[in-house]
């Protein structure tokens, strides 16, 4: 079973990880490391430098490949976002004059830690993308994927130009319009009908949950920051309580980041994954619509007794495509379900355990501190 947090490589024949990444201004360069026993690769082990855009390119080509229409394409990793820590860093630089050296150093340290956390997360999501590809029976054999892994030069993927950007935007518009259009088509398979309503509902819910969870973790973090200021202040002025505050803050910070990692990230990932599943459904519905259209065309052709063979052929093609899509779609969606449940289970358990652990630690700390306060102040 695959899941977000489980190691996706059950298959030792192709192991991918990102052991290193470099951040150069806006660009993040990931080192993609591959270890394989497959003969399709020239060497058993190699590393290549890749950028975020390369990942996007890979994802897009996979989506556009006709053969994979029946698959849930793993969602592309989100763009690295270092804005918030960077902004804070900037603010810190501005406020340098108003702070003492110690304060400044502490703040800086704190920000660096935050920055690192974001960085780490970014690396992780990219890694997961590749790992999901590698563990997929079909996608792992994709030519582009192999090129992505193996080609040791810069892929120099052409960045999308304005026209293409617009084109993509337009395509999205068409797609959503199309979605509305084909939603009128009667579903022939109950499974997909159910799946569709479920996914649509689920998507809206999980989207909401994600937003809320994000908000929650964000305010948790700002609470932590506030704690931090309080701590700094206490350290400088008052001494004793500060170490407790410092420790509590650390734990609190960890609670926040664990929550983010285990809950928010999970929700976020599955939101994207569901989107991918929805895309699959769309492609299938599209195929269904095509098939019906071809049926109509065939009927028309028969009426006019013109071009019947072509129309028949086309209809057959569409039917075949649709069947294929339905079949693989069914498989994929069932797999997705299992994957989702397992991932949720794992993450929820981990989160609960971490929460307990953190709470216990802070409990012990507070307890000992309370004792100490008693004895100290008596």
């Amino acid at each position, binding site marked *: 079973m695959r899941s977000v947090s489980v190691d996706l490589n059950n298959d030792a024949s192709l192991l991918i990880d990102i052991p290193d990444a470099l951040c150069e201004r806006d660009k993040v360069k990931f080192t993609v490391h591959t270890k394989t026993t497959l003969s399709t690769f020239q060497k058993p082990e190699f590393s290549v430098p890749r950028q975020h855009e390369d990942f996007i390119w890979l994802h897009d080509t996979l989506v556009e490949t006709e053969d994979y229409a029946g698959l849930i394409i793993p969602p592309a990793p989100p763009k690295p976002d270092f804005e918030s820590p960077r902004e804070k860093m900037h603010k810190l630089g501005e406020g340098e004059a108003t702070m003492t050296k110690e304060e400044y150093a502490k703040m800086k340290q704190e920000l660096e830690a935050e920055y690192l956390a974001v960085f780490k997360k970014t690396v992780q999501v990219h890694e997961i993308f590749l790992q999901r590809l590698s563990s997929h029976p079909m996608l792992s054999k994709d030519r582009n994927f192999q090129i992505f892994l193996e080609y040791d030069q810069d892929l120099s993927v052409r960045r999308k130009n304005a026209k293409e950007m617009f084109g993509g935007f337009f395509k999205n518009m068409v797609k959503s319009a199309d979605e509305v259009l084909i939603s009128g088509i009667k579903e022939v398979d109950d499974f997909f009908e159910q799946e569709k309503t479920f996914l649509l509902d689920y998507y809206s819910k999980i989207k909401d949950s994600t937003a809320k969870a994000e908000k929650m973790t964000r305010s948790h973090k700002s609470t932590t920051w506030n704690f931090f200021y309080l701590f700094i*202040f206490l350290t400088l002025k008052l001494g004793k309580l500060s170490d407790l505050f410092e420790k509590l803050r650390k734990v609190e910070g960890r609670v926040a980041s664990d929550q983010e990692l285990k809950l928010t990230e999970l929700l976020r990932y599955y939101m994207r994954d569901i989107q991918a599943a929805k895309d699959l459904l769309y492609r299938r519905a599209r195929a269904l619509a095509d098939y019906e259209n071809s049926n109509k065309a065939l009927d028309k052709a028969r009426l006019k007794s013109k071009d019947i063979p072509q129309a028949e052929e086309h209809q057959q093609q569409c039917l075949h495509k649709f069947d294929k899509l339905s079949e693989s779609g069914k498989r994929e969606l069932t797999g997705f379900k299992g994957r989702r449940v397992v991932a949720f289970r794992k993450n929820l358990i981990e989160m609960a355990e971490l929460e307990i652990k953190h709470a216990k630690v802070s409990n012990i700390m507070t307890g000992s501190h*309370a004792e100490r306060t008693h004895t100290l102040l008596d």
Partner: protein
Amino acid sequence: MATSSERSPPPFPDSEDQYVLDSEEVGGRDCDEEDGEDLFMSAIEPPLTDTTLPTASQTSDDLLKPPSDIMNNPLNEPASGQTQNKPASAAVSEHSDDFIDLTNNVVATLKDATEISLDEPSDDFVDLLGSETEPPREEVVLADVSVEAVMGKSEVAGSDTDSPGDGKQEAKESSPVPIIDLSESSSSNTQQPPGTDKVFDPLADLLNDSPLITDAKNPRSTTTDPFIDEGSDLFSEPWQTKSAKQPQKSLFGEPDEDLFGEPLHTISKKTLNKEQKNKPVTTKAAADDTINITGPLQESKPVEPADLFSEEAVASAPSISNTSKASAVNAKTNGVLSEEDTDIFAEATVELSLDSPRTERKKEVIDKPSATALSLSAAASLTMPQAAALEELEEVEEEEQEDKFDIYVSVKDPEKIGDGMNAYMAYKVSTQTTLAMFRNKTFTVRRRFSDFLGLYEKLSEKHGPNGFIVPPPPEKSILGMTKVKVGKDDSSAADFVERRRGALERYLQRVVNHPSLLQDPDVREFLEREELPRAVSTQALSGAGFLKMINKATDAVSKMTIKMNESDVWFEEKLQEVESADQHFRKLHTLVESLVIHRKELSLNTASFAKSAAMLGSAEDNTALSRALSQLAEVEDKMEQLHQDQAANDTFSFAELIADFIRLLGAVRGSFDQRMKAWQRWQDAQAMLQKKRETEAKLLWANKPDKLQLAKEEIAEWEAKVTQYERDFERVSATVRKEVIRFEKEKAKHFKRQIVKYLESLLQSQQQLIKYWEAFLPEAKAIA
């Protein structure tokens, strides 16, 4: 995700790994690093204005900390404490053998002693000592130091049974490094093997001069492991006893005045007190009340130790027999030692004082400040540097007795009376007392907010000019009250009322706990009388309010114009302190307030997530997962409640208290202003007198006898006024001084109480949290 994170590059510290490290720190010996921190911090804290006194206080501050921190260690692992007992005592008895050897080893000199103390973290103390050059004093310091070293050591012995090399290393961890250095440096005199024995070298040095002291210290230190709980008391005690000895003497005269709550503490303290009595001392020490802070209300303690002591004191010749006795004690460390412990200790102190009767005077100078600093800093962890208060304490004496009265006032049941804009809140003021000045033991009256204000007006009018710090009530809040008046069941209105109720209660408690204010008939009337004449002048927008504003403005102007050449450094320093404390509290207040706001936000967001998670759970088609999600929603719901409680806790425990003290500091400043006004009056009178005299001289010269008579009368009148005003000024000064010290004590006490309360509620909410998540865990595991 977790798996991949572990493989990520070294610069990214894995959160879990880090975690483990930290939690180890917490559970185990994080104390060491704190040590350093604390020392460092306190070293910066007090403004060193006076060369001798503040340094002394600072030292004691420093000295106090390490032991208590170390104490933390055993507390954290009570289980291991048990196991430590045995090896520790074994090691201890071993030590005692060494110890006897050492007594014969007369190598060290006084010079050594000073050298050693230089290695101590608190160099200042040594400087101070150097200037005083009182050998016995130095010994005491040294003994303390060695106690610390020994303590570190004995702990080491406890944790890994005396392998010298390891032990040394460990000791460095568990006790401040400088101290170990100290013992090492001194060990060069004696040819003891490294490791555990080293620690006792300083003791050996000391033995030359006063074997008894070291004897006493030694058993004490050895007892530390068996009595882990009392450990901190033992450790902190040496400083206390040494420094607090002198001031306590007069306190001692009253046997019912129990100073310390904890038994061990008590015993040794008491013996000290007794000892003071017997001692032929020259100076009558001031009753230094600051020690009272350390133990608010206590049980009566055993008398025997004191008796024991007085017996011992008679036979207090320093001899080998004492030493052997000490070692006997050492050998017995397995048992509960409190008795032997005490009398030996008592002997030691007697010896000390007998040795140097003439130095008592000087000692006092050192003792007192350190005593105060010690107790103050211990009690008032949140207060500002107290060093400046020190020299004063010799003068502020008897009045500083415990002013606890048997009266408890509570403000309850806020109730809205009336409707619309004429509505007001009435509170139930209940008093419980056994004081004879009240007619009943318990009584309850209803008071409205303006009554509280009216009481304050009366009190401040009467007592303010005399330099009393009249506790101020919470400010009028038009905004808050409007909310209450308009809003029906708004939570912010309820919040406001509760805040105000708490503030009023604390205000009244402060008033009745003030010895002078309690005597005021208005206070009694406020508490007792059924109907109170309506306080009219308290309305913010009334004519009286306007007048008050004008008065305040003129006050402010005159304050600026008065240039007082301060004759008393104490007041100058205190005023500065008050100012800076005010600033700190204000900043702290905003920080805590914003923390509260953030928490509230967090609780809101958590609530909305909980709802959303519940929705998600309903959408989920896997039954178990759906169930787990709705469980998660429930947990988050409870979390929201916790966050909310925490916010309230922050508010009521901290923000409100801080707000109180900001107000109080205003009152303190007011009392300083009153003193300044008194001074100004005096100065004006003096100027006037001067003028009159000049007029007289002129008249004399102009030879106008009729007017001369008048002028003479006027001069006499003004002379009387000048003396009167001068006396007033002196009186106000004395009151202000007393009040400020009382205020600081109160502050320390309140903060302590509040911190403890805060921590307790924090503990509770953490436990809740654990409970919730633990209940959730099986649900998550049940997802198949």
